[in-house]
């Protein structure tokens, strides 16, 4: 176990280094820069600007400088928002996205697992069809359609919520439902599949033969194995959901990190692009590690080997 974790950490560190290096150079070779603007500035002013940010130094030198400051945990200043550092921007916005993500995830898991389990237990009945329809809708109707529809119905027509914003607890409801809906669908389908496989296995038949109630069979015996596909889905999904959704944050005007992923690239905000990429990479690696450990605990057939 210990050997497994240290070896995985070392691998992750190497992968992270490669991600940083590739991102650093790729973003530099994209046409346009942080100061490319419609109203052209004189070459002298552009030189002053580049000197101010150290962009006039050779690229390899900038790369080494970046790695050194990264080693100190400093992600540098933002080009687009000069009075904020990348550390601050992430520090301000990640918690917002994480809060929304946690709420959406809770919604997705409760709805998704319940529907998936019901669908598996009552397979090929109307319950299964309702759950499957829900799953298909969640997968095929994009959030940018669901979001505005809910706003139109619940905020504009009924006046129950603000159309957008992130001020009070009521402002959390619509975005969490819309984002959760998109994740509930695959969770319910994966749960259904996993449960169907487990429910057909010998140990379930044994439990039934011993006279265990159906509820007990599902909650005590089947779910642990039936949720395995959901758990492996959740690793990357949690990383994605915690780091925010560009679409949801744009529709609902939420000050989360999801918009920065996209906008920083449009703005050629080199340091912010790197900061968000590093954040995402670290989260994915950490969560995949957690998933492997959880899976070993849930499924006796999986062993943590190298």
């Amino acid at each position, binding site marked *: 176990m210990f050997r497994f974790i240290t070896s995985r950490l070392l691998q992750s560190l190497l992968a992270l280094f490669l991600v940083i290096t590739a991102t650093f150079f790729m973003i530099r070779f994209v046409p346009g820069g942080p100061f490319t603007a419609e109203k052209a500035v004189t070459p002298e002013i552009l030189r002053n600007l580049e000197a101010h940010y150290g962009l006039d130094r050779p690229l390899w030198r900038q790369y080494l400088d970046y790695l050194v400051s990264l080693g100190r945990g400093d992600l540098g200043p933002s080009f687009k928002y000069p*009075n904020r550092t990348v550390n601050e921007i992430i520090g301000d916005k990640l918690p917002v996205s994480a809060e929304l993500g946690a709420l959406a995830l809770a919604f997705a898991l409760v709805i998704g697992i319940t529907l998936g389990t019901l669908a598996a237990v009552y397979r090929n009945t109307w319950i299964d069809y309702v759950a499957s329809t829900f799953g298909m809708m969640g997968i095929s109707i994009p959030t940018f359609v669901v979001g505005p529809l809910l706003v139109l119905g619940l905020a*504009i027509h009924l006046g129950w919520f*603000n*159309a957008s914003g992130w001020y009070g607890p009521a402002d959390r409801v619509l975005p969490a439902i819309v984002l959760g809906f998109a994740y509930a669908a695959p969770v319910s389908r994966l749960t259904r599949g996993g449960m169907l496989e487990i429910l057909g296995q010998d140990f379930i038949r044994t439990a039934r033969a011993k006279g265990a109630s159906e509820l007990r069979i599902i909650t005590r015996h089947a779910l642990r194995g039936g949720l395995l596909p959901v758990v492996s889905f959740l690793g990357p999904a949690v990383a994605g959901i915690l780091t925010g959704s560009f679409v949801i944050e744009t529709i609902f005007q939420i000050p989360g990190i999801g918009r920065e992923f996209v906008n920083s690239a449009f703005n050629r905000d080199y340091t912010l692009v790197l900061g968000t990429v590093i954040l995402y990479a670290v989260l994915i690696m950490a969560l995949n590690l957690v998933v492997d450990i959880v899976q070993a605990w849930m499924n006796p057939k999986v062993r943590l080997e190298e």
Partner: protein
Amino acid sequence: MLRPLTSALALLLLGLAAGCGRPANPPVTPASGPAAAAAPAKGGPMIWRVGNGAEPQDLDPHIVTGVPEHKILMALFEGLLSENPQDLSPEPGIAERWEISPDGLTYTFHLRAGAQWSDGVPITSTTFVRSYQRMLTPALGAEYASMLHHVRNAKAYNEGKLTDFSQVGFKAVGERTLRVTLNQRTPFLLKMIATHYSWYPVPIHVIEKFGGLARKGTAWTRKENFVGNGPFILKDWKPQQVLLAARNPRFWDHARVRLDEIHFFAVENQDSEERMFRTGQLDLTNELPVAKIDVYRKEFPESLRIDPYLGLYFYRFNVERPPLNDKRVRRALALAVDRESLVKNVTRGGQIPAFSVSYPGTAGYAPTAKLTGKVEEARQLLAAAGFPGGQGFPKLELLYNTSQNHRLVAEAIQQMWRRQLGIDIGLRNEEWKVYLDTTDARKFDLQRGGWIADYVDPHSFLEIWTSDNLNNDTGFKNADYDRLFAKALAAPDDTARYAVYQEMDALLVEELPVIPIYHYTRVVAMNPRVQGVYPTLLDNHPYKYVWLRDAAR
């Protein structure tokens, strides 16, 4: 079971979607619920809630470059001069009066007694001199420093060729007297000072405490440190949400200010913004989606606001690439564009068809030369240039930045060229910064361009087409045009200057380095209770004159 369920769902979705086309609640009277709770009750503080586009980059007038920042800085700062609410002409600001020397090269500003920062520190002529010195300091790398380059030696100092600031044309003659000396006559200088934030003073005494004058992005613009001198002070700033500005009791003209607070909402998405307007979260939007314009015309004409805007939508030619180096080809392409049909059917926001580069009615100037001619003439010109009926015309491309609206305009014009002239122009879209890079390198045949004036003066549009202007980007170099440009600046008064501009506009319509397409409008939704917002050509609305009907005060 499956069938009734899905049809029920389909009905539900249809029902919701049917509501799309027609807002349910008239925005004038917000419905009950949280939206109504957010609206100020009668007798409460007078709060104006404004959709302000993108998140402001910073609040330092020497650093920022965008429109959303400008809108906020107009509340938080005031320069030597301020703007008239109806036509934006210069009015007294921190300077209560001013004189211009007969040769037009020296401006003397007399500052009012008692002008002070929001922390009570007095504003003197030295404050202005040191502010301008900071703006021009090479190490600060201020992008809009060129706005001050009209001042004697300012450019040399900004480029590091001169290190002694006492040789630059800003002088504090007395504590309340500022003298500005120029390189050459600059007839629009006062308009520029009144309108553009690069001329605002900055609180040197505060900036010095936070890392010095030559550093960008220090903590002085944080809400806990910020000091300004405008009609409003910074009350709170929640990045990517809202910025709150409250009345500044230390503002010299505070008795005139009627609003208690302005809330600037950072809303980038037009559709979200429009929904916020409909729930009563906003009194004024930054934009209105094109698809909503007709809905508002029919349902809420009192909330639809269309104002002229001093901007030109145009297509640049790369005049060095054949066959576009032939004036006849350029004229044929320009004449084949049906502008009336374009603004009526495609842009739909009351835009004004453009037959000249200058806007008819810019500070009393209206160009007489107009691009006119029948499609017949266009066909003949094309034939004379060697492409009868479009035969043999090479495959050219029109470059535009990725956007739904630009694509629609480009497709319509592409169609007009195909139908009227028989030529086929390809369309190419690029992401914004890639497109800017391509434009700058002039790697295009035709390019979509736009230009918004910085101040209300015809100079704004005419200076771009001089040979060495960095925004020209067409390859158009014309010695006559450059000569006229210099002549206009030297003109003794505006009558003489505008006469020269007539010649310049005529020359542009003759040479056509660009195809003028339409003059912009600002299309927004505004709650009719908002008062004191006039159509001002630049969409600047000096906030001390704005107030809300049916609210206290």
